[in-house]
């Protein structure tokens, strides 16, 4: 399982990447796409929407099931990836490249509270048993 060290993670299987301009880009993990299978629908939050940490804000649906996506940290949506909505299978091909939306965090330090790669690896392994 590919769990890049430069990303942060949530218990609900989102990844979050701190960009150089201070914004945070969000997607679902490779592990999450592997569980869900072939993606056929993505619905992102609208640009400008203000999200609380842990708020339900997007949906991904595979052939098998629908799954909610949660905001890893609080912030305002500044970009949403229309390409992944048009071609949801991009998430299956490379979950860490197929970003969903970008947040401007309310507090820059909040991202530090998320899981690092080692902690997320441990979570995935614990769920496998």
């Amino acid at each position: 399982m590919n769990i890049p060290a430069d990303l942060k993670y949530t218990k609900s299987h989102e990844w979050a990447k701190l960009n150089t301009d201070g914004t945070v880009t969000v997607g679902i993990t490779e592990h999450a796409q592997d569980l869900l299978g072939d993606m056929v629908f993505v619905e992102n939050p609208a640009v400008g929407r203000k999200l609380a940490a842990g708020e339900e804000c997007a949906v991904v649906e595979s052939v098998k099931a629908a799954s909610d996506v949660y905001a890893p940290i609080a912030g305002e949506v500044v970009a949403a990836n229309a390409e992944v909505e048009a071609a949801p299978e991009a998430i299956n091909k490379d979950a860490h490249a197929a970003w969903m939306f970008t947040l401007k965090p309310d507090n820059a330090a909040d991202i530090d509270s998320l899981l690092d790669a080692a902690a997320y690896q441990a979570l995935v392994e614990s769920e496998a048993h």
Partner: protein
Amino acid sequence: MLKQTPLNAAHRAMGARMVDFGGWDMPVNYGSQIEEHHQVRTDAGMFDVCHMLVVDVKGANVRGFLRKLVANNVDKLKLPGKALYSCMLNPEGGVIDDLIIYFLTEDWFRIVVNAGTAEKDVAWMQKQAEGRGLAITPRRDLAMIAVQGPNARARVWTAIPGTQAETEELKPFNAVAFRQYFIARTGYTGEDGFEVILPANEAEAFWHLLATLGVKPIGLGARDTLRLEAGMNLYGQDMDETTNPLESGLAWTVDLHSERDFIGKSALQSRDIHQQLVGLVLLDKGVLRAHQQVHTANGIGEITSGSFSPTLQQSIALARIPLGIAPGAEVEVEIRDKKLKAKVVNYPFARNGKALV
């Protein structure tokens, strides 16, 4: 502890994602579920259906027993090997299970029932057969592998020398017993193919042999989208003991015209029918799922099975809605906080590799 089929180790060796399916440890997909779906529509795939149960009914006048037991008319079974799809009803007209009956001889009929209902079915059959002197035998010593797709029959002919001569002329919904095999031209995909019943201890070798011939393993995920496109009901989802076949798109399997009495008949005859099972195609973007509400001009209905159709490249569903809503009508489906547009259509949605809507 989950139950395992004789192919459990084979699934794991082939990289299957395994799930708890009604108490059975079954493969949901091996890789891409959509690729598995197309594999069956365009070439050949194989399904582990060993969790389903073969039940042999033997003795004098099995036919008389089945006339009473099931809603379809076994008198349609005139030639040995002929198969019949039917519901088995409770006295209230609810569906205990849907099953396939094969006529072999007047003192031997073979029934294949669903996995989740198998124990309940056998108990019900044994209760109804009391005093008839019949032997009702669950055959867990047998395995069943479905080989489906336009090239499926040819692969089976290569895998089992001698079968081509025995089964080439076999018409759909017919079966033949050949050596240790029972080969039926039936399936749950809307494609041509066979369901092969064989001794459980030969199943794994047969599975691997088919794999070497290019038949790909197909999981329960693709099995569900294939049967949904083919417009075939799934027991427990599209109908169960609380719904009757006339409101489940299965009126064609219920014989209310002959003199014959069967369990559930009087309940069906005295019941007012208010609902129908229809096909839906989603016009907006999203995915239809079971239990979503359907708003129609005549009231509210509910989706019974919904998914994404790999053949149509859009979402489709079966839904139980009020009578009087005809194909072509637009309805609205509640998905999360939105009402999305869908169109009522006749199903099947796809068969034999082609989209039909």
